């Protein structure tokens, strides 16, 4: 309670939605049924099971209520502050200038009850900084608008910016893209194969064995259906001054907002079976979006689940303003690379322009990775023993964790060294002109002369001018 006395929660701070304890109490109830059920089975008394379950439910409800009562959030200066905990008070401040993305998620139960979860992604934290579970739908939307306005460096009461729909994924295309995915096809082939085998073996034991080994195939199909179709159902990509917005989901819905200049890299990918339709998908790296599991990262880093090449090219130009990654001239990998990539070496290529570095690779699963120079975290040259014998080296352009990795593989040593040095220099120059963290502030500041040519003018313009005044 010490924090309370020193730094009490301001009066105007708000609580989460009153239904929160109910929605978050699921875990407790499941535990009660698990433990109580075991106990009941062992003793054979169903009455005791009911009592245990009830006791757990009551305890869970009380704990949930207390936690709800002591959790409050609000704006404290330029940061979002969340106070929680009854005995161990915790006060967390989320700096909004580092805001990378704001998501509003609505799980199925939440949709039925009219509440949603608001997630903030802030650079630095490994996982989502502070999921506010749960808020009334209107509150969540209002809070998101305020968060984005404050992070943009404009008045907090600015209403939500208007948006323009860039792309909607038609349902039939989404269904077909699922059917043509590797996992789905493999699952179907597997099941059909086992089905054919069933026709030949009439033995009952073999039949049971065959039927049960169909399970992995069914799981693969289910996962493909869920991952592509269920999650990306009714996918809408829109753009607004706040960056791009994504809405999607069949049962659980997700609304993502990624402000301008937060895209750390984009990959255009094409599975083998999509080639006939010339469909591609786009994945992005956004700092903080990677999550702990690859499932999490898959869920949040889809920019377009399926689109034609032309549509994807259009979107690519939107999220990486000032450059056209698809028309960057590419340099092929040298001949010795064929020993290390017997099939892919002819497609292996990279290119740079003023804004981005582009890497193309993959024969069956085609891949075009784009990383803006300004988002380069570090540059590495790596040379393994085989590469040394062949006179090759790879250059890695490191970005924040996520599905997009730019590796300029297998170049000649002189070239590799030059790429690395030049990339470091390009990144240095690009950082100076990158979108500032407070992305709307640049419009306000345009009348103020910028401290260009300053020795350490690398920071965002807003920060440098502050420093000059000191």
């Amino acid at each position: 309670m010490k924090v309370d006395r020193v730094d009490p929660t301001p009066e105007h701070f708000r609580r989460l939605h009153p239904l929160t304890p109910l929605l978050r109490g699921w875990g407790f109830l499941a535990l009660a049924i698990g433990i109580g059920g075991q106990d009941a089975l062992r003793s054979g008394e169903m009455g005791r099971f009911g009592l245990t379950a009830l006791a757990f439910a009551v305890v869970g409800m009380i704990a949930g209520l207390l936690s709800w009562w002591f959790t409050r959030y609000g704006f404290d200066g330029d940061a979002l502050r969340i106070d929680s905990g009854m005995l161990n008070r915790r006060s967390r401040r989320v700096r909004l200038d580092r805001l990378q993305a704001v998501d509003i998620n609505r799980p199925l139960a939440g949709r039925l009850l009219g509440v949603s979860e608001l997630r903030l992604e802030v650079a630095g934290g490994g996982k989502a900084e502070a999921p506010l579970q749960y808020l009334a739908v209107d509150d969540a939307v209002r809070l998101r608008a305020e968060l984005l306005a404050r992070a943009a460096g404009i008045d907090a009461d600015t209403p939500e910016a208007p948006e323009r729909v860039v792309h909607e994924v038609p349902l039939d295309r989404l269904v077909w893209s699922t059917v043509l995915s590797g996992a789905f096809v493999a699952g179907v082939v597997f099941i059909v194969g086992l089905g054919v085998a069933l026709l030949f073996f009439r033995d009952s034991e073999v039949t049971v064995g065959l039927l049960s080994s169909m399970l992995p195939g069914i799981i693969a199909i289910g996962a493909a259906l869920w991952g592509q179709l269920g999650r990306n159902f009714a996918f809408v990509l829109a753009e607004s001054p706040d960056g791009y917005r994504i809405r999607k989901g069949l049962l659980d819905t997700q609304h993502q907002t990624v402000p301008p200049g937060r895209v750390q890299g984009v990959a255009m990918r094409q599975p083998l079976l999509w080639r006939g339709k010339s469909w591609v998908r786009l994945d992005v790296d956004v700092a903080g979006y990677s999550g702990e599991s690859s499932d999490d990262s898959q869920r949040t880093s889809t920019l377009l689940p399926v689109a034609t090449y032309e549509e994807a090219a259009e979107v690519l130009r939107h999220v990486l303003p000032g450059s056209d990654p698809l028309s960057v001239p590419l340099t092929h990998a040298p001949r010795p690379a064929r020993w290390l990539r017997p099939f892919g070496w002819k497609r292996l290529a990279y290119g740079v322009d003023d804004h981005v570095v582009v890497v193309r690779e993959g024969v069956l699963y085609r891949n075009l990775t784009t990383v803006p120079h300004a988002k380069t975290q570090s540059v590495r040259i790596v040379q393994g023993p085989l590469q040394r014998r062949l006179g090759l080296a790879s250059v890695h352009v490191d970005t924040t964790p996520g599905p997009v990795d730019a590796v300029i593989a297998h170049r000649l040593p002189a070239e590799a060294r030059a790429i690395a040095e030049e990339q470091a220099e390009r990144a240095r120059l690009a950082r100076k002109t990158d979108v500032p963290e407070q992305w709307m502030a640049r419009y306000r500041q345009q009348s103020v002369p910028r401290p260009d040519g300053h020795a350490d003018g690398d920071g965002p313009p807003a920060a440098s001018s502050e420093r000059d005044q000191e």
Partner: protein
Amino acid sequence: MDQDQLFAPPGEAWQQVSHKLVDLRRLVLLITVTLVAAVAGVVLGLIFGLAGVLPVVGAALIALVWGLWLIPRNWRAWGYAERLDDLLVTHGVMYRRLTVVPYGRMQFVDVASGPLERRYGLATVQLHTASPATDAKIPGLPAAEAARLRDRLSALGEAQAAGL
């Protein structure tokens, strides 16, 4: 360009890490090999008798000789250079690496020194960026040099800091 120049220093020469790192690594190697060999020797000796112990001794000797030969080579491969805008770190014998980290991309600097390292007056400095792949670790720095590097890096990092 010749193969060696791929990892050539940007200026005159790489700044090398302390030679005490070789002594430290040798000591660690000796302790590890002795411990592992002792455990394996006792277990195999109890099962197979003397015939079980001899291969263990042989393997331990080979590991020891190989390690003692490898450690100085590995030490020689370490190098770093502070340039105006970035830090260069190189290391590795089998897999050779060169990392360029712009100061402006630095999130934080770690200085670590374990009990053995402290006995030799050494410390490890590691630079972290927003990418976990960044491989900018410099082991075996004398404590004073580590402190100097840390201060310089954090000062430069702050001066050149850029948003993500």
